Structure formats: structure tokens, C-alpha cells
């Protein structure tokens, strides 16, 4: 979330200057680089989790006698040497098997799919809000640098960032759902729509897509109504960061020589800001925005909790408390992959914007 630390991390291989068929090679290397990242995270989490309690004692600590607990632990295999369990886990993982959750008997892959779809949907709404709010306002702020609109926008940006997601969510809920009654309090859809979408064959889990596919206009409207508050809550958080980022970078590029050069040829101010300066300014913005994905997932935990949006972030917090090793590791691995993939996509996006980058 540290938008101001603009040194783009993960700079490995970024802005390589070579040409030719380096792209494929680069893709492969980037892909392979994901593996150690995921492995490191999963391993760290594995040992940390096992060091701090087990799901069985957590579930039955005030139910069963110590000997009964031991029997259950033995039956679940948690009393074996940690290394054995670790290697077993890795072996399964290598075979693409994430295992089953310890506490509620689901395939971890299923958990990832179901809740992942929800988080993706929420993140999507948030990104839309963030882009729609952050980019144009950032441009306005940069254009009106150090004047009243800029001051107001910067304050707006900082307030977005400074207000804890749950506090903002609560306030929005009170105003728009309880006081005005315009929007639903929480959830991803109303009960009827959820039942209807659930009965669809091969649902994607992304409600908006499912609703559109169902062809039921009222269902789409219902899903969108439910998306408004969570999308805004999480979106504004990112929008604040984005606004500041766009502003800073735009101010930077606006002082570049080529802008002065364009100005010396009589190009007008509006066009300078919207065309000449924006695209170069977007390169670092896109890069940093990729990093925001991690922050977005973190913010999603709080948003999901506040709005009953049953997604991965909330589930992770839940599975952590009950020490569901398999589920936590699965979600962590997925997060790592998502973040790595996003950075990868960001690189490609940056390459599209920046003609100098050719791998």
C-alpha cells in the first residue's frame, strides 16, 4: 500500500533491452521464478502453522480428554514427524493435489475455486472503481497542481487511504443501507437470486457473469446492487493510492523535456496532460498498481468481513484461527500465484505502453 515508495520492486528482468525471440524465453523464466516464491511462502506457512497448534485441539479442546485428543491427533496423522508431513505435503502439491481442509472436509481446490471467484469479483469491482476514480482525478490534480482542486483531491485521496476499510464500510452501510434503504446491507445477492444462480449448470462462481448468463435482468440488477457498497469501499482505498500515484508521476512527466518540447511547438495544455504526459506517466503507475494487488487482497479481508462477501480473504482469516493447515497453505499459495501472475501481466502491460521494452 505504500504508494509513495515508488521504487518498483521485483525488478528482476524488467526493462530488458534485448530484442528478438527473447519474449518466450522471458515468459518461461518469469513463470519458473514463480515457483520458488510460492514454495518459500508455502513452506514458511507450513512450519509456522504447525508450530502453533492443531485443528483438532482447536475444535475439541473443551470437549475431549487428553487421551481422546491424542487418539484423534494420531488418527489424523498430526503426531508424525513434521518433516514427514512436510515432504508428504510437497509430494501431493507437486501432483497438483492441495489436499482437503482439516476442519470442514472440503477439497482445498474447491475452496479456492468457490471463494476465489468471489474475491476475484470483488477485486474486479474495486479495480473498476479505483480506475474510474483514481486516474481521471489524478490527472486533474496534476493539471491543477498546488491549486484548490489539487488540494481537495489530495485530501480526498489521503482520507480514502486513512479511513480503515471497515470503518468506511460501516459508515456507508449505515447511510445507504439502513438510513436511506437504497442498497442492501451485505451479501453478494439476495437469497432468491443466489438460489437461482446456484441451480444453474456450470456456474462460474462470479455472480455477475452467472446472472448475465441466466438472462434474468432482475438478477443482474440485484447482483450489481449488492456490489455497489463493497466495490466502492475497497475501490476507494485503491483509488486513493492510484490518485496520488497518477498525480505524482504525471507531475514528473509534465516537467520532462519532451513535454516542454511539445509545448514549444504550440501543443495545448489539455492535450499535453491527457495525451503527451499521461502515457509515459502510466508506465510506473501500472507497475505499482500491480503491486497494489497484494494490498487489494489484504484490504479484501476487511471488506469481505464487513460485507459478508464470502471470499478468500475472509476464509483465510477463518482457517487461520482454526489452524486448518491445508486450507491456509492452499490459499497462501494461490495468493502468491495471483500476485506473481499479476506482476507478470503488469510487465506485459507496461511493455505495451512503453515501446522501449522489448524482451
Amino acid at each position, binding site marked *: 500500500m505504500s504508494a509513495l515508495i515508488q521504487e518498483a520492486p521485483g525488478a528482476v528482468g524488467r526493462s530488458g533491452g534485448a530484442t528478438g525471440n527473447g519474449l518466450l524465453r522471458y515468459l518461461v523464466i518469469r513463470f519458473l521464478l514463480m515457483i520458488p516464491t510460492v514454495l518459500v511462502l508455502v513452506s514458511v506457512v507450513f512450519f509456522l502453522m504447525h508450530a502453533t497448534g492443531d485443528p483438532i485441539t482447536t475444535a475439541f479442546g473443551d470437549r475431549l480428554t487428553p487421551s481422546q485428543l491424542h487418539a484423534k491427533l494420531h488418527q489424523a496423522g498430526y503426531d508424525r514427524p513434521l518433516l514427514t508431513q512436510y515432504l508428504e505435503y510437497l509430494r501431493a502439491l507437486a501432483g497438483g493435489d492441495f489436499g482437503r481442509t482439516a476442519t470442514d472436509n472440503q477439497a482445498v481446490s474447491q475452496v479456492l475455486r468457490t471463494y476465489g471467484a468471489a474475491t476475484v469479483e470483488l477485486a474486479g469491482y474495486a479495480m473498476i472503481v479505483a480506475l474510474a476514480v483514481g486516474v481521471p482525478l489524478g490527472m486533474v490534480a496534476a493539471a491543477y497542481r498546488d491549486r484548490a482542486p489539487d488540494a481537495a483531491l489530495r485530501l480526498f485521496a489521503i482520507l480514502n487511504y486513512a479511513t480503515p476499510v471497515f470503518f468506511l464500510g460501516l459508515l456507508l452501510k449505515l447511510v445507504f443501507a439502513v438510513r436511506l434503504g437504497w442498497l442492501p446491507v451485505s451479501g453478494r445477492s439476495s437469497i432468491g437470486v443466489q438460489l437461482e444462480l446456484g441451480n444453474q449448470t456450470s456456474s462460474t462462481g462470479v455472480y455477475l457473469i452467472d446472472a448475465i448468463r441466466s438472462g434474468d435482468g432482475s438478477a443482474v440488477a440485484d447482483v450489481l446492487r449488492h456490489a455497489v457498497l463493497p466495490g466502492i469501499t475497497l475501490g476507494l482505498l485503491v483509488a486513493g493510492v492510484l490518485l496520488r500515484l497518477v498525480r505524482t508521476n504525471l507531475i514528473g512527466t509534465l516537467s520532462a523535456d519532451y*513535454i516542454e*518540447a511539445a509545448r514549444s511547438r504550440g501543443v495545448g495544455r489539455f492535450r499535453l496532460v491527457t495525451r503527451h504526459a499521461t*502515457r509515459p506517466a502510466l508506465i510506473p503507475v501500472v507497475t505499482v498498481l500491480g503491486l497494489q494487488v497484494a494490498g487489494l487482497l489484504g484490504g479484501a479481508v476487511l471488506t469481505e468481513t464487513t460485507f459478508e462477501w464470502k471470499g478468500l480473504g475472509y476464509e483465510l482469516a477463518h482457517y487461520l484461527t482454526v489452524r486448518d493447515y491445508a486450507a491456509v497453505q492452499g490459499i497462501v499459495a494461490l495468493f502468491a500465484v495471483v500476485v506473481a501472475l499479476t506482476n507478470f501481466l503488469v510487465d506485459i502491460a507496461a511493455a505495451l505502453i512503453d515501446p*522501449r521494452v522489448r524482451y
Partner: protein
Amino acid sequence: MTDLLRIEDLHISFSTDAGPAPAVQGVSLSVEPGEVLALVGESGSGKTVTAKSVLGLLPPTAATSGRVLLGDGETDPAEDVLTAPAGRLRALRGTRAAMVFQEPSTALNPVFTIGWQLAEGLRAHGRGTRAERRALAVEMLDRVGIPEPERRVDHYPHQLSGGQKQRAVIAMALALGTRLIIADEPTTALDVTVQAEILELLHRCRTDFGAAVLLITHNMGVVADLADRVAVMRQGRIVENAPVRRLFAAPTHPYTRELLSAVPDFGNPATARARPAPGADGAGQAPVVEATGLVVEYPGRLGGSSFRAVDGVGFEIRPGEVLGLVGESGSGKTTIGRAVAGLTGVSAGLLTVLGEPLGTGRGRRRLRRATAGSRAGQIGFVFQDPATSFNPLLTIAESVGEPLTVHRRDLEARAVRAEVESLLDSVRLPRGHGARYPHELSGGERQRAGLARALALRPALVIADEPTSALDVSVQARVLELFAELQRERSFAALFISHDLAVIEQVADRVAVLHRGRIVESGTTAEVLGSPRADYTRRLISSLPLPDPERQARRKNLTALDRGSPGP
């Protein structure tokens, strides 16, 4: 009134952290149609600021007074840029006057194609349709001498060479049919060979396009080559304004005289290094540096193919001898210097420095140890940019004394201080400057301190990598003088790296000419520069504009005749 540009009693001052800072104080100038007016002067004298004021490009922190009138008063009414409303100003920009910037790579937007950027100027003034604008862009690129303009028009700036970029920038300036081009150091960032081409193009701006040029430069050679009239600026004022020949022949203001005398005059025996025949005193002794088949490669990214920056170079430096290394940008000069200093590993070949062979291959660790070991302190290094070569958090005395503190552990603090003071004395720096921080010194002073540090341990070898290229000519002259003097006194061997033939001529006993990582020619300074054998050396020398309008004009005629094209 027929002047394209008339500046009357212009004052510009900036508000800074330290209060208002006057940059231009009462400048008056005028440029006539078809004329090339050169604006010269030391760094910070206000040349750029004056030029920017013409197009109303000053930052809002600038306060101005006086008048800047654009327009010849006949076809266009003269208008005061300083008071013109924003919309009017925009209409004037590019049409009445256009600007060519110093660094072509930063003056072009990296994410748009050349053609698009060219068309933007036309579009801003509502010229033509999209297709017409593109056609005009192609035509302009063609006219400024960019090959294959139809293809190049869709290229991005990074796909063009430095010279081509500058041509594109000039094309953009010309595209709107302006009659006045303001060129702010248009060739400083370019190699001499490329510089010559761009100067030629600017020349054509006048002949082919009928545009007047306000040329800002600090290179007297360029002035002599191109200008009709010269205005000399100093500390925000014009101190002398005269036709070019008169100025060079009979400068009136002391500052102009000083400026002209500081310019290294290539091919002028009076300024060439006067000393006994090279190698005389070092003959017979073992060379300080000996390189055979030296190869330095930089590894590619992510295991990609590596880049060979130095490719089979052989040379030697004898005790007390100064070897000048010249070549265009990227030819590998710095790389060789760093290899000799042990800062870069050697990939292949043999390099013996001070009698100790430097291993080849992945010898970084060994190298570092070698530097810290027996050769430690026997090599002095003078860096190109004196500003960055000092730790900003240490005083000059601390930095200069660092070699002593590290290597002469036996010395007490007092002794170190005394030694530092004598070093400062020897580079003619007031002792009091030792207590200052690097940013509190001028560029020339910093470079002197750099010399002092390099000499602290009385090294047998000094490597100087473009030690004066960041300095003003006048300051450069002093530093070069000092270098030569110290070298005579202490008779250390030196590897002197420069891209400026005139500088090399002044300091080097022998010269090696580097081109794309290979040495194309080497020999005594007189041999190589006086009667060059390699084509490349000849090209280098002929590209160098001489700081004397008479000689330069003569030479230009000669080359023009050589090429069989009519002279100007």
C-alpha cells in the same frame, strides 16, 4: 523593423530557497532573418533562460521584465511574448520561433512515434488533415536527411540513433515553417562525427529553409563554424556582441579574451604538449601497464548473450608517460580504464598492471583482493564527474585523507591532516576548503580535490576518465594545466581518457584511438593527430570544428571540395 526577434532590456529572476536569484539582467538582443546568432558564455550565465523566455517557456517561479518581441513587423506584427495571453502564446510557439533542445533523447516522448510527435505540432496549429500531416511528416524527415522516411515515421525514438533523433527534433522545429530556430546546445550530447553532421544540417536550415538560428553553445569551434554574429554572456549580461570574425580576431571584453584563450586549439602547435620525445625518460624500464589481447565482456541479462565492450586491445604505458585514449561514445574507453584500475573483471587476454598480472575470467574476488593488496594505493583514479565522485556526507579533507587513513595506519590524525593540507596546496586549493562539503565547492575546485585524492599515496599510475568533460572550457583549461604540471613534477604514468582530440593533444605523449572496442591506431600524439593513418582517425579529426572562423571556413571548403560538392 525587420528583426525576427528583438529582446529589449530583459530581466529574469527566480525565486529560490535562498530568495530571489537574478538569472538575466538587462539583456538586449536581436536576430535578423537568415542570420545565425551564437550566444556563448560560461555555464549558468543565463543563455538557456534567455532562450526559453522567447517561447514563454519559463517556469512560474520566474519573474520577468522588459520586452521580447517576436515577428518581423512586416509579414507578422511584432508581439511581446512576455505579456501575450496564453492562447496567443500558443499560436506563436512553433510558428514564429521553434526550439531545438540539447539532449535529443529527452526532447522526444519515448512512447509515441516520431511521426505522431511531428504531426502533433501541426495538429496544434490546425494544419491539414490527418493524412496530410503524415505526408508532411514524411517529407520533413526526408528533408532533414533521415533515410527511409516512410518507415522511420512509424519508429519510436529509441529506434533512432542520437544523430537521427536530433534530426527529427530539427524536422519538428522546421515543420511549421518557422523563420527562427532557437537551438540550445544542439550538439553537446553528440559525438564529434555526428556533431559535424548536425552542424551541417543547421547550416542548411538557413540555406534551404531560410530560417534564422539563435544558436546557444559553449563550444567555440561550433561558433566559428556556424555563426554570423556572436553575443557573449556572462553572469546574466551581454558583455560583447560582434560579428564572428571580428570577435575571434579582436575580442574587446576581457572575459571574451579569457574565454577564447581557454579554448584548446586543436592542431595549434602553441598549445600542444611541449615535452621531450615520448618514451624518452621511460624507455628501457618495465611498462607500468601492459595489455595484450585484452577483452572485456559485460554479461547479458538473465543469461542472454554477453556484450563485448573491449575486443582484443593491446597497449602499454611506460613510467612517466601519458597515454591518451580517444574514441567516440561507447567505444570502450571507460571500460579499459576500469579494467586497469581493477574495477571491472577481464574476460580474456593479458593485463599486467604495475608488474602484477590481473587474472582473467570470473576473477572479481581476486581482483578485489588484488586491489586491496600489493597494488593498493599505487593507482590513482580521477573521475569524470567531480560532483559524484565525492561522498556528499564527508568533508573534502576527509575524502582526500581517506587513502591515507586506510593504507597508512601508522599515521596519526595530525599527520594525516598535515599531509592533506600539503596535498590541497599542491592542487592549489585553499586549505580552508578542506573543511567544506563537496557541494560547497565549484566544479573546478572539486576536480582539483579529486586530483589531490588520486595523488594522496603518490601513485605510480593515474587513470583519468574524462576528468574535464563536465567542466566549463575556462575551468577545463585550468584543470588540464594543473594536471600537466603535477604530472611533470611527480612524473607518474597516466592513462588519460577523453573524447576531445584537442584535450588529448594537450596532455598526451602517445595516443590510442579506440573504435567499437578495438584500437584502430596508436602512436605518438604528433603522429596520430598530425598525420592520421586510419580512416576513422581522419574522420574524427575532420569533424572537429576549429575555434577559429578563418581556419574553419578554409577547412570546410577543403572538405567540401574533397567531397566534390559545392561549398557554401
